[in-house]
């Protein structure tokens, strides 16, 4: 299997609080890695370190063998890191379609020069992006809402839009931060299906999730984090069966 993401000896601390303590992770093509652990364990911080929101204090991050820890946030997205956010961070004054159209890795409409000098290529890219966006919306069953304001959608659907927006980035790594929080019913099913499809299509996926059944259903492998440290890695069942972890979590 090809390793997509490799994190080596990553460290990060805010003042006295350690959010990443010598973290090492590898995720391969087609794999869905679950990241579990109590609040404040450093799961979201790890996502932020990988995607470039935070700069590590030390350690390396490689994507497809290329070292990326020095790159700014937006460069990392362009070379193939797509992510969702715990709070979704949708563009709230825009429609569903517009939210998605921002997200392709290549977006010639961002350049005022291309807009004026290469109108045709911009138009072409636009048409393609729309097509892709419709396909993705179709997959999550929300094609009908393309022109609705995102804020008008129910919460579960907004979550799906968050996912769809990330999917517009066709890179190799997909980071999902609590995709299921607040999601129920049909949206839950859809989310699960789409994430699985993405992995099958060859993406490396990493999920932070408290919903253990979701992790159990999807992930082949999971790591358990606490206080910025990876305490144990293994299959989900192994982790759940681990007395140490259960005690740590529930102390029962």
């Amino acid at each position, binding site marked *: 299997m090809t390793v997509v993401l490799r994190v080596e000896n990553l460290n990060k601390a805010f*003042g*006295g*609080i350690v959010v990443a303590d010598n973290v090492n992770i590898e995720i391969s093509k087609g794999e869905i890695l679950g990241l579990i652990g*109590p*609040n*404040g364990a450093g799961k979201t911080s790890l996502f932020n370190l990988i995607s470039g929101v935070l700069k590590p204090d030390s350690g390396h991050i490689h994507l497809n063998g290329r070292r990326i820890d020095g790159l700014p946030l937006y460069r990392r997205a362009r070379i193939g890191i797509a992510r969702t956010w*715990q709070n979704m961070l949708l563009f709230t004054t825009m429609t569903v379609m517009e939210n998605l159209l921002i997200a392709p890795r290549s977006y010639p409409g961002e350049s005022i020069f291309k807009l004026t000098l290469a109108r045709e290529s911009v138009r072409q890219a636009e048409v393609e992006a729309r097509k892709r966006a419709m396909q993705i919306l179709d997959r999550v069953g929300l094609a009908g809402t393309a022109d609705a304001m995102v*804020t008008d*959608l*129910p*919460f579960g659907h*907004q979550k799906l839009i968050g996912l769809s927006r990330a999917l517009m980035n066709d890179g190799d790594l997909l980071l999902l931060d*609590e995709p299921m*929080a*607040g999601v*129920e019913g049909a949206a839950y099913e859809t989310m699960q299906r789409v994430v699985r499809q993405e992995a099958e299509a060859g993406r490396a996926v990493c999920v932070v999730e*408290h*919903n*253990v*059944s979701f992790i159990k259903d999807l992930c082949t492998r999971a790591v358990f984090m606490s206080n910025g440290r990876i305490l144990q890695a293994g299959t989900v069942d192994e982790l*759940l069966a681990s007395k140490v972890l259960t*005690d*740590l*979590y*529930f*102390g*029962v």
Partner: protein
Amino acid sequence: MLTYSNVNVNYGGLPVLRDISFKVEEGECVAILGHNGAGKTTLLKCSVGDVEGATGAVSYRGEPVVRGAVFMNSRRGIGLVPQGHNVFRQLTVRQNLGVAGLNSPGGALDDVYRLFPVLEQRGSQIAGSLSGGQQQILALGMSLMTKPSILLLDEPSTGLAPVIVNDVMDSLRQINNSGTTVVIVEQNIPATLKLASRAIVLKAGRTVFDGASRELARKEDLWTWF
């Protein structure tokens, strides 16, 4: 003492609390558990009237909690220690305690110092420069300065070293034993269940369990709740 009846809260289409009803009795120690986004913080905020657009009723000692004026509820004896080491960062430890106790004549400073000697030692230190654990203890101490009848804590152990967590929990036990009602929201379930006799578990804004802590431990489907 503290009663929730049919409390519902929505944030931009997302139901955060759904039909929450429960009662906290005088002198009880209740743990509220649940994963991120389950609505625990919102639940606590409702008891000081800090949630816009909440429906249903929250009452304290038979009187409804005043909406939108947190300071009035605080003066009535509802003490909330919010999440994230909330202290006045630019003031010294002593000033922090002083400010917190301004509205409660008589002063509880001696009690607080007895409970947390570290606060007396660090009296002149700027609160923002304390360690996270010390800040949490300070926040706790500040809350005690208001002489609350009921103390609500939002994840007091977050970011604390395990040794300190034990200290905090011990202090809470003492506080509870001295007659103050305690409601604690926690992620650190083992430590909390040792402290609290009763647990309420929230999942996606709903109460999925309300009963004795010991019972909770016996539940088979524990993992699915978190």
